């Protein structure tokens, strides 16, 4: 069944677009991430800190806990043009956004 799912994925995923996001010292870097609208992409969130972080966005319908020192992938999109806020659920003052153009 999983093979059927992968075989039916869009050409955009076959040539995977990947972006990186780092969380450390209470900040996301970059705090604004520009991505291409209309294309599904992989976002790798790396936690360079010493405590867990959680990438979360209601607008993107995504949440993922990233242990300290680890990197976790998320698959997002395709997105319509616009801004999509996200935050760290362990430190909700730490916020950023993905801007799709």
């Amino acid at each position, binding site marked *: 069944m999983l093979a059927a*799912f992968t075989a*039916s994925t869009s050409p955009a995923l076959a040539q995977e677009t990947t972006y990186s996001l780092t969380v450390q010292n209470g900040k996301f870097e970059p705090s604004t991430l520009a991505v291409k609208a209309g294309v599904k992409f992989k976002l790798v969130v790396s936690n360079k800190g010493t405590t867990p972080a959680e990438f979360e966005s209601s607008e993107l319908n995504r949440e993922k806990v990233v242990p300290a020192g680890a990197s976790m992938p998320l698959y997002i999109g395709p*997105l319509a043009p616009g801004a999509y806020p996200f935050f760290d659920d362990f430190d*909700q003052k730490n916020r950023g956004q993905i801007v799709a153009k």
Partner: protein
Amino acid sequence: MRTGARAVLRGKMLVFAAVIGVAGPLNANAEFKVRYPNIDESEVEIEHNYSTTFDSRSQNNGRQSSPTEIGMGVLPFWFVELEGEFSKEPGNKWSFDATTFENYFMLTEPGKYWLDFSIFAEYSAAAHSSEPDGVKIGGLFQKQDMKWLHTLNLYWEKEVGPNASTADGFQYAWQTRYLLDPLFQPGVEIYGQIDDLNHPGPFSEQQFRAGPMFAGSYGLGDILGKGKLKYEVGYLFGATTATEQGTLRTRLELEIPF
């Protein structure tokens, strides 16, 4: 909307959701909820559901249920919940019906494939030894298309143990929601039930209800430092003679990452 007015609105909606969420006793067993296939490891969730029916037929008016459950992401692909189920038939008192152990097995990474998919499996132990236990197994499917979120649940259920029915039950639920804003996401949903797949009977003898819903979440960073409160409210119109004419359902969930 100005920042101050937005904060006031957020606060009022939070109070409204809390009131709706505790409209009934803190008990268990509202089946009118759509389950989502994507789980969160390292999160604890406390959830309260409630439903009540409205019907001109007195025997169907005021049928209530109110399950409460606590769950946790054990592994990246496995989420477990323990639920206490309570219900109240029209004219009767509230009763404790069962203790239920639920499992979600996430088989696809959210968004990686065309469809998100999880397997759901639960065992419900009846509160009274003369009543049968229950098994429910099913699939949870979700597809996101830009800001539209579509979710489908399909379940097979069976009674086991003393006085168990021989019927194979089937339940289905569908929800389409628009991701408008974290606080307010409107949508529509459908719930259907066939008591015996081997003898489904005409559609008029099956349960089927549909109606609008809305959902949202509120960050608790300022109060608890982390976590969020989620709510859902829906009103379902019965579409067959076997279904109550109206059903109000609510869901209130506290999520805390650890």
